[in-house]
């Protein structure tokens, strides 16, 4: 499962879970993603025990919903992020999060390999782009995703005026967009 550049092909592992209920593939996914999900949830304000519990939940959801994973649409990291985010909303807020309609044409039976490759590379390219952002902008983006903080709550905590935060986040996203194109 190792690609030439040393990166694991996570999407292939998810497909093995989907098609063969492959526990070894799942274990590899678990070892990589579970500690990240746990850290993500702890940064969102969950204590270690709740984060452990929810991270297991998120990984169990990955197994259960592996048939919904569309490798042409999102990388595994992005997909795991959306599961973890929804779990966080359930756990910390106890509120519903309405989801948009699925696209009417639905997933194609055999996704185009080029598209799959492209979507799976996105996370790595975005990660590289993120790491090149100035520290301040990068910190704000991470806060917005991790912190479960609204922009105005970030303002209270960092002491930055709201306008500055919004423009920094916008600037940071703009830079990301340039690096991606």
């Amino acid at each position, binding site marked *: 499962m190792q690609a030439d550049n040393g990166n694991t092909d996570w999407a292939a592992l998810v497909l093995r879970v989907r098609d063969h209920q492959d526990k070894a593939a799942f274990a590899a996914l678990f070892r990589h993603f579970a500690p990240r999900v746990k850290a993500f949830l702890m940064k969102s304000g969950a204590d270690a025990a709740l984060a452990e519990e929810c991270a297991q939940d998120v990984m169990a959801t990955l197994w259960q919903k592996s048939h919904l994973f569309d490798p042409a649409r999102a990388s595994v990291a992005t997909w795991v992020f959306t599961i973890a*985010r929804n779990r966080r909303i359930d756990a910390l807020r106890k509120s519903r999060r*309405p989801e948009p309609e699925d696209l009417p044409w639905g997933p194609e039976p055999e996704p185009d390999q080029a598209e799959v490759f492209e979507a799976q590379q996105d996370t790595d390219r975005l990660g590289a782009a993120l790491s090149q952002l100035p520290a301040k902008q990068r910190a704000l983006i991470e806060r917005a995703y991790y912190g479960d903080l609204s922009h105005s709550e970030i303002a209270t905590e960092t002491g930055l005026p709201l306008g500055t935060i919004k423009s920094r986040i916008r600037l940071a996203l703009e830079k990301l967009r340039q690096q991606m194109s």
Partner: protein
Amino acid sequence: MAYSAGDLPEAFNLVVATHVSLCDECRARLGAFDAVGGAVLSDADLAPMADDSLASCLDRIDMLPQATTRQPLQRAGCFPAPLADYIGGGPEAVKWRPLGMGVKQAMLRTGRDAVARLLYIPAGQAVPDHGHRGLELTLVLQGAFRDDSDRFGPGDIEIADEAVEHTPVAETGPACICLAATDAPLRFNALIPRLAQPFLRI
């Protein structure tokens, strides 16, 4: 982006999910924001899992019911699926309450920190002149309305904050139906609506 990060109150999430159902450009942007979330997650520090974690997760999986293919949400009339799911149907299923002058509204059950409601404005009718104390998102589902500066048709979303004072007017044609979310009460400029405000919950 706040929707992607999961930071919005439920009422705003409903408006965003409904809008994204109607707008491919925003769907693409949402996908991009989710991807940034994926990258942030990938770069995350690691919090070591408990020793028996994988084993108990596999146990948990064995206990799970067989994956049920969730019934895809259904659109109902001019209501995209996420909204139809809240209402339990299309515009005909809404329990409207009259506000006077043919204007009707229905409050939706969402979290406490913001309020979502449907508005029904007959063609040509105006919603009383008002400003805003917080943020108001208004998504047009049917018909169209205009205010001093712009026109909003189906799928369009108006974002109003403290700086905006306006009198939206429904265009001629079919009645205008909107989904609106606010995180603070509206501020009406005339005395009568202001007196009625606590009773009407708008």
